[in-house]
């Protein structure tokens, strides 16, 4: 499994953090990440956060394989607070559990970043520590 991009999208679908391994293809990945929002909306029906909390356990935040492109696979994770985590990997076979763990860890990192009192809600995440943690997570550090 080779991770080519990690993205965090806000409550209003705005990009908060987009990391791409190959900067030359950044625009291409941005389009893919933006497209993934359609599949988030398709997979998660419009339910209120409260009802969602009561009916779904934590594991349900992992939405699994959202959609394929010709070269990549896109995986999604929707937090209880409606943040969307997107992971794009190359077209190789992966274990679902691995991806689930990865996105769970990414969620933890995101929570840490949001808890930072200097972070403004719904603004892009520019924290260096957060970036380093992401690199660490995907093994690029």
């Amino acid at each position: 499994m080779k991770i080519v991009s990690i993205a965090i999208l806000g409550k209003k679908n705005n990009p908060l953090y987009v990391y791409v391994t190959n900067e030359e293809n950044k625009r291409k990945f941005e389009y893919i990440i933006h497209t993934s929002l359609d599949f988030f909306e398709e997979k998660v029906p419009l339910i209120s956060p409260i009802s969602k909390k009561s009916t779904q356990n934590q594991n349900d935040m992992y939405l699994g394989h959202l959609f394929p492109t010709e070269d990549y696979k896109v995986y999604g994770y929707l937090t209880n607070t409606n943040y969307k985590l997107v992971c794009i990997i190359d077209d190789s076979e992966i274990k679902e559990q691995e991806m689930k763990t990865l996105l769970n860890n990414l969620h933890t990192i995101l929570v840490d970043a949001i808890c930072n009192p200097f972070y403004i809600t719904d603004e892009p995440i520019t924290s260096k520590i957060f970036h380093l943690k992401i690199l660490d997570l995907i093994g690029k550090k």
Partner: protein
Amino acid sequence: MNTYHKDLVSQPLPLIGLIGEESQKSLLKNSSFENHKFLSFQNLSKLPKKKNNTKQFSESYQPDGILKTNWVQKQLHQIPSVFIKFFVADDLFNQENFVVSHISTLFRALKERNIKIIFLIIVPFESTIANEQFENQILTIKQKTQFDSRQGSFVFWHESKPKESREAVLINLKEMINRHLKEKIRKVKKNRDFYMKKTQASIFVRLYFKCGFYSEMQGEYKASLKYYLRSYKFLSNISIRHTSQTELRSVCEVINLRILFQYLKLNQYSKAVDQFQEHVSFGKRIELAGQDYKFLSLIWFSQQYKVFANYLELVPTEKLSPIKNCYENIGFYYNSAANYAIERKSIVQTLKAKHKKKLSKLNVKMFHPSSIYERVYDFSNCNYIGQPNWILTLDDPLQVVNKQTEDDDYFRELYSETQFDHSTENLHLLRKAYRNYSEQNPHSERLITTIATKIAKEYFEEGEFKFATKFIEHISGKFRQDKWNNVLSTVLLYSLECGLQLKNWRDFIKCLLELLVPKMNTQEETKAILQSKLISIINGSEKEIQKLKPHEIINMDPHFPISSLISCKVHFTQPHASLNENIYLKLSFESNFPKPITFKKLYLDFNISSYNRIIIFSEDEKNKEVENNEKTEEVNTEKGSIQENENLIEKDNVSNLIFNPNKKSCFKFQFQASHIGKLKIRAIKLLLGDEDGGIYFIWNPFEFNSNLTLNNLNDENFNYENYKKNRDFPNRSTIEILRPLKNFNLRIESQQPAFVGELFQINLILETNSDHLMNSELVFEKTKKMKLFSLDQYNSSKGVKESNETNETNETNETNESNEIIDNKLLNEIEPISNLQIMEIKPQIEKKIIIFVKSEHEGIFDLNIKFKYLHKLLYKGIFNEKYSINFTHPFEQNFNFYSLSKEILNKGSLYLLNKQNFILSSELIMYTQSQLILKEINLVLNDGFGEIVGKSFEKIKSDVNIPVENKKVNGNGNFNDSGEDENVNLKPNEIYQTCFYLKPNSFFQSNEKNNMQKKTIKNKRNKRKSKKQTNYEQEVNIGNIIIQYQRKNVNKNENFKHFLITKKILIPKVKFVKKVLTVDINFPSQGRVGEQLVSEYLIHNHSDNFQKVMVHVSHSEEFLFSGFVDTTFQILPRSTRKIYYNLIPIISGHLSLPSVKIFDTHSGSELTETKKNFNIFVFPTQKK
């Protein structure tokens, strides 16, 4: 599908060789043999030479290629499965030896190749040979030629029976073909045993492909699919070391295509999708390395996706629904094909630039441009599939290519690629993807947007700017909504260029401004260039660009994307101001333009146009300001702003409207409040440019210009109601201008309700803010229905003198005094007031003035007070106050009269005969709100009416007449005379009854006669007008009931007093009626025809005078009667007169008596009016 050779995309059909004369061959060709291909042969020399079966070890172990070139063509076009040899029937008998030798030769030749043969014996119409003879002859030939029935057969073609003959040929052909193909498959399968699956996978690919191909020829699709899949499986096991990637790729493409066709025929679409995914992943494994060769891979992938999408399009839509995965949409395949094609285009463009010189020198025949099938090539010389030789077997001009060097091949391919129309291909694929997604997956808005972005880019690159703009307008809204500024900035750059090319300056300006927005990730350098461009357009210095006319209006509302370019805050320094006071408006702008920007004018628009102001930038000081930019900015934001802007106000002219990036510019404007009410800032405009043309940046434009709409806003979820709420500037953009504070104030207090006939107290409370003692004058508007009294006036008339000092200092004294009972009689004597002079009202101390209002009418009346306050006899102010008072009745009254003889004739009327006493009963219902203390109830009789014999007072609970509490009342009506209780408390909503027993006195009796006579005269005069009016009626006023009561203070509000009130209630007039004449009638109840009846009329005169009476009897046909018909007579005073009538009935039954009318001649009234129409029953005559 057109991109492939037809042999690859059509079902393979077995070939049938025909040997014989042309006329004989035409027999079959004309007989419409479907699914059979015929090929004419003169002899067998046309067949390709059979290869030597002896194999060298190296070749067999590891072949040069996977599939042999020309093999497919051989099967389809060169080597027949079955030969048909024609004979004429007569030849079998006439030229037997020749036939035998010919058959033997053919048999031997074809046995080696395992090709079957059918000998078709044509029996002409005129043939007379019997069938038995034929069969015998054929048996003879078979014996001579050692005929093997597995290898061939004899079939007759009777010209007389073409249908039967055709059937026979078909059956034989099918049997022979199947036998041939099965043997081939068996033979191929046998070969498997010679090879190793692991090391010689390529041979297995070939073997299984052949098996699949033969099965497909047979029409055995399941079997063929099985063989092809195996073949494909072995293909994936082939090591790339032993073969070239391009060969592998082309072979897998061919096999994949065949597999997909088998699935299509078997209706297994989801399996086809799985196969395609496997195929693509296999293709990725064998991708060519190196950037220079990448375009070849991209072509291949693009082609694979496109072909599969085309393939799926052939499938009915309803058949696709079972495929429940991400790959179900045809759009996905077109989109993927387009993505590869776009990448291919960009790489080819790069390579074209890189190898420009070499490509220009290349002089070659063109490849077929769009066929990937013909692009499959390798750089080695080998007769196997995946190489040009294989493709170019049949006289292809490109055979030359083989002789070229590898390098030349590559450039030839690159050259043809550069000549290819990529844009058309890309747009075709993208449009297909767009259409499919829009139709099948309309909710995937963003996916569709992404495809639209690619289409826009393609159009843009093609120079189709109009189309590109259309798409960009559509897509930019979605990116803007999701705040994907990175992507949006890219799109806007295209839009900007489109605007420039199309000379659509308005779109150009909007895009440019949006690109300058700080959140947009445009590079700083680009931003600086864009701003310079903007300024040059505004100033008209750009040659190509016309000046922006008329002005462009940019909405700076927070919902609009450009709003963050300049933020504007505005507020008044205070929330309220008095009239004529100075008010200040503070304005701050924060520019986010990348470079300093200068505005020409600033417009301030208020809800009241007289406050509107235009601030003009002075050109002379421009240079200075630009030089000292940073310094002035600091001054602006801090203390200097006021000084600088005070100058502005005087000149109405700002010296500096230059806004520096990321710095605030503050202004303060002074106004004078010249009206009362709300002053609200409606809009603020900044003009970039001049009067001839430019841009207006407007904040709050909806108030300012109602023509503006939300066209610029592409947000579909836009909530206009919320927007409307928030569109105003935030707090403090409104100031309330109030009246100047009053020096004097008047307050009115009262306690409802007000009752008719009672004094209603109103407290007027005066207060002053002035430091001096103030005087005032209250003028009350005169009304007919209300009277005003003042307490002071009352007190002075009563002779009570109050000192002002005690009034003001000791409030308790005042209240005690106010509780004093006001004498109602005295109040009637004093005159109502119309104005009041109030002197020396002390500052900060309330002055209370008590006035009373009294009305004798029910209703709501306004008390209008004109209030003048003055200081040292000079009017300081004047204002009006209005106060409404609702007067209601305090009691409900109900009177009943009863005579002692209990003869109640009418409510409120009674006969008063002689000296009879009568009872006057009155009911009083008290009103709520307050309890009453009843002091006295008294009946005052008019003179000569009589005297009160007795009285009673009792409470009646609800409607049931049960005395709960009896109160004895003395002759005068005072309660306190009993010596027990002084007062009676009356509670709200309870019914109290009081009764008076009256005895008319002699004076009344003596007057009675006179009154009656007077009335009679009057009645005579009125007789003409109303005949029915009765004489001897008299209406008499008995007198009044006078009640004295005081209201109890329930709320314990000591500010209000309750006085002893004397209420005079008029008793309704009593009717006295006296009857002078009365009539009694006696007659039998039954009679008999012919027998006499007597009816008797008794007329009584009750008066002391003679009374004259007139009698009239009407005619009757039912009775014979004797007596007076028309007569007048007098009756003595206080006597009775009898009249008799003898009646004899003529007919029997119920008969009405003849009507007898008796009139009083004096009054003209009919005495028998109530006694008409008496009926009696008359029996018939009794039988003797």
